[in-house]
């Protein structure tokens, strides 16, 4: 047997969709996390409810690199329909566990092969009701794996306790199968592969969460008052998390709600409701994905032009069109930047971690209300639906910014002399009043057509130009309210990298690899908002080559950067690729190497 390989490999489980493997997979993930080992788990699932092949891939990495890897050292094959392919996919020297009721040829001798008598073990447990057998079958591989690579059974129990909210019956039932698996493995399997896990202390103080939950919680701490949504993968769980946590966090002692969540009839209506609510002074949000974004275009343009604050979460999936509904991408950047006919500027937030999903969850409202405009938050399926290690969520460190709102007493002071679209402060941001304001001068009329500073209809050329120029000014003003980029500089960097969102772990790993293996040091700017602030321009100016990493075909962010930095357009090299799977470090470093070696 070769050298032990500890805390540095990937485990992939292949099951049929809907077979209930997610409990098992999450249990492995959580147990490893509780052992203190950096991990990530990614669900690579089909757009289907039951039956099609699905995979769950867990990265275990002692150095904290938790991007997906393309190679699978340990494969658990539970699905006859993907068996052959799963077998082929095991890395040389890897381990292949499979349910032994699958009777298909096994033609590899370079890996360790472990049959698992799953059905048999389940059936031999008399406590398991017939209708639950298929469900708990998955616990068998948890047990076998635990024994074979050394997952702490106590941590598995912790994970199950969490999963079943301390309900004893299911915990016991599932644990019995885990143990049966472990015991069977102890008695029957001889380890021939080198992969082991060992406890560490690298996850202490961290939490485990998905980006949609984080975003919903962030919004709740941001005081969201109104949310309208329409179901769509991978965004649905964001609104569903609102439904889950709002009653817990946002009911008065008398049990009354300080919020309303409406499931709309479609995305046209979802955003329409949000625009209405935002206009009426509520912190309003909607969440959707590509097809929903396309449908929201017309209302988004109205909100921009009529200056209505609202927050739109786009949990990106693979487009164009219906595309791959259950696969991740960063393909909506260019679209969102141009979302609407006519001249449009979009404020875009780009969370780069689960913690930032939470933070931008509340911060987006401050920005939207301050700037009186839609704020788009671009997340993606990888963030939205996968479990990630994360720093704990931080309570907002600044008071809410409700922006420029005039109430009765303000109007009293102004003697009713105000204009909805007057640029009083010279920052391009006007004042607004809210429906329900009982001052007789409070009301104004809002429209998507040309209007004067007093909100009256106008087709006058100079009135139009003044309005549009003010909006442009507002967009400039916005920069001071947007999160700055996160910049890492190292001595001797040969080039810069710009990235955003869920690619961060892969970028970090690629940087480490390039430095270690090729002596190529790099600076790194993680972009967190559009429009680009001065620091971004400076970063570009400081580097002769800047690789712009993104999960799409066309290098959309690189294009936007080019537009704003014509003098440095040739420095911006797109590293853009999108095949539906979360990015790997290898993709990034090999693409950069290819360029560097030119």
């Amino acid at each position, binding site marked *: 047997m070769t050298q032990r390989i500890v805390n540095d490999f990937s485990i992939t489980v292949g099951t049929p969709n809907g077979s209930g493997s997610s409990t098992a997979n999450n249990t492995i993930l959580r147990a490893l996390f509780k052992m203190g080992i950096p991990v990530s788990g990614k669900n690579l699932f089909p757009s289907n409810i039951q039956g099609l092949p699905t995979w769950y891939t867990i990265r275990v990495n002692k150095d904290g690199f938790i991007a997906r890897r393309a190679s699978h050292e340990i494969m658990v094959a539970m699905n006859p329909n993907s068996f052959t392919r799963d077998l082929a996919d095991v890395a040389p020297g890897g381990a292949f566990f499979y349910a032994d009721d699958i009777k298909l040829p096994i033609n590899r001798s370079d890996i360790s092969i472990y049959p698992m008598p799953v059905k048999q073990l389940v059936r031999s447990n008399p406590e398991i009701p017939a209708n639950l057998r298929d469900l708990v079958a998955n616990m068998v591989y948890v047990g076998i794996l635990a024994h074979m690579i050394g997952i702490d059974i106590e941590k598995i129990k912790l994970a199950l306790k969490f999963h079943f909210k301390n309900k004893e019956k299911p915990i016991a039932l599932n644990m019995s199968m885990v143990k049966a698996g472990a015991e069977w493995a102890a008695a029957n399997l001889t380890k021939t592969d080198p992969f082991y896990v060992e406890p560490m202390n690298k996850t202490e103080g961290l939490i485990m969460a998905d980006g949609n939950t984080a975003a919903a919680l962030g919004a709740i701490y941001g005081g969201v008052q109104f949310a309208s949504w329409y179901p769509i993968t991978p965004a649905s769980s964001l609104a569903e998390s609102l439904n889950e946590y709002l009653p817990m966090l946002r009911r008065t002692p008398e049990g*009354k*709600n300080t919020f309303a969540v409406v499931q709309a009839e479609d995305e046209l209506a979802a955003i*329409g409701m949000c*625009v209405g609510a935002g206009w009426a002074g509520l912190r309003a949000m909607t969440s959707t994905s590509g097809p929903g974004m396309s449908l929201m275009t017309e209302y988004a343009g109205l909100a921009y032009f009529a200056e209505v604050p609202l927050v739109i979460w786009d949990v990106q999936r693979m487009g164009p069109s219906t595309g791959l509904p259950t696969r991740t991408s960063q393909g909506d950047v260019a679209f969102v930047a141009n979302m609407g006919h006519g001249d449009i500027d979009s404020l875009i937030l780009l969370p780069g971690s689960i913690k930032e999903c939470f933070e931008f969850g509340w911060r987006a409202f401050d920005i939207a209300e301050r700037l009186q405009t839609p704020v788009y938050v671009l997340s993606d399926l990888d963030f939205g639906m996968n479990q990630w290690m994360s720093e704990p969520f931080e309570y907002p460190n600044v008071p809410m910014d409700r922006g420029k709102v005039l109430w009765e007493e303000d109007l009293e002071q102004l003697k009713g002399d105000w204009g909805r679209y007057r640029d009083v402060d010279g920052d391009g941001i006007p004042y607004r009043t809210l429906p329900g304001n009982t001052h007789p001068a409070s009301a*104004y009329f809002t429209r998507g057509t040309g209007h004067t500073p007093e909100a009256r209809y106008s087709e006058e050329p100079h009135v139009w130009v003044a309005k549009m120029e003010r909006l442009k000014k507002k967009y400039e003003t916005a920069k001071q309210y947007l999160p700055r980029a996160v910049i890492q500089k190292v001595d001797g960097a040969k080039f810069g990298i710009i990235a955003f969102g869920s690619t961060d772990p892969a970028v970090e790993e690629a940087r480490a690899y390039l430095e270690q293996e090729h002596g190529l040091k790099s600076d790194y700017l993680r972009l967190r908002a559009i429009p680009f602030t001065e620091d971004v321009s400076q970063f570009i100016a400081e580097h002769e080559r800047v690789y712009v990493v993104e999960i799409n075909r066309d290098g959309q962010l690189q294009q936007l950067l080019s537009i704003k930095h014509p003098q440095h357009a040739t420095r911006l090299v797109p590293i853009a690729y999108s095949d539906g799977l979360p990015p790997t470090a290898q993709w990034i470093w090999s693409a950069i190497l290819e360029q560097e070696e030119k």
Partner: protein
Amino acid sequence: MSEALPMAGAAAQVNAVGLSKNDYRGNPTTLCQGCGHNSIANQIIAACYEANVVPEKIVKFSGIGCSSKSPTYFLNRSFGFNSLHGRMPSLATGALFGDYRLKGLGVSGDGDSASIGMGQFKHAMRRNVNMVYIVENNGVYGLTKGQFSATADKGLELKKQGTNLYLPVDICMEALASRATFVARLFAGNAKQVKEVLKAALSHKGIAVLDIISPCVTFNNQESSYYSYSFGKEREDPLHDISFHAASEGPQSTISYVPPKPEIMLEADMVDGEIREVALHDGSRIVLKALDKDYDPHNRLEAMRVLEEAHANNYLVTGLLYIAPESPSLTDLYNLVETPLNRLTEQELRPAPETIHKINALMF
């Protein structure tokens, strides 16, 4: 803003909430002279004045079209939002959550609601959004110069458009199918009926759909159309006379735009010529006078029958077709705090600092 202020120093007659009719006016109309929509705007002003509505308690909504321009012609002291073509309902739905005490007053067109807006229109009814929803129905697209709308009769001919090939949408039938809680068909030329039903609608809790036949004098005034004045007047078949009694005549609190009064419930069974009162959610009432027959506006199927009959016999039936006074409106269903949502403070909206630890503890 100052344009919306009542004229200073005017010694006008005032209503129970201390406002003169001027306080209910809007900007001068920019619609065609003689447009049916103008007379509806005037009746809105009159109805709100007579019903002692506080203008700040009304929020105006519209889509896009000549009809949808009207909200600038009345109630300058009410907030208003001229939204997108066909998408007024969703906007109103969201906006009314801002302050549940506000009443929506939406003006839409047949193109706006029955063509592009069909989906949102139907879903607003399903939700019983707390608004008066007026469809100023002229069978054409006025603002884009006279194309057929979805309520145009099949076989109708218009100069530049040729023959309409498709079946008309019946706004009232749609409202009934979607279980709208207040459904009336009116004729813009019949000012009094429009005004009285409007007052009733303003008192109704939930959605009140008013399909008001409102002829376009410019693009659809042929003899063969339902929506022309001449034809409308001839064919009109009034179902009831409706008159509105404000439940209170005294000055009102600024909280409610309609005079609150003890409820007066509707009696059972009507006979010909009988006067029937329908109790509204806030205690004010409408009185129905059965002209033709014992008509019970609480029976959805009967309303459908009347519409079918009218359709078969090629005439217009006007009046309050249906009312379900006891249905909770949308905001009623949300168990909201008493303070309007848009007046909640940071303290009320942001969970306490200590909760963040509990939340983090849940994340594993």
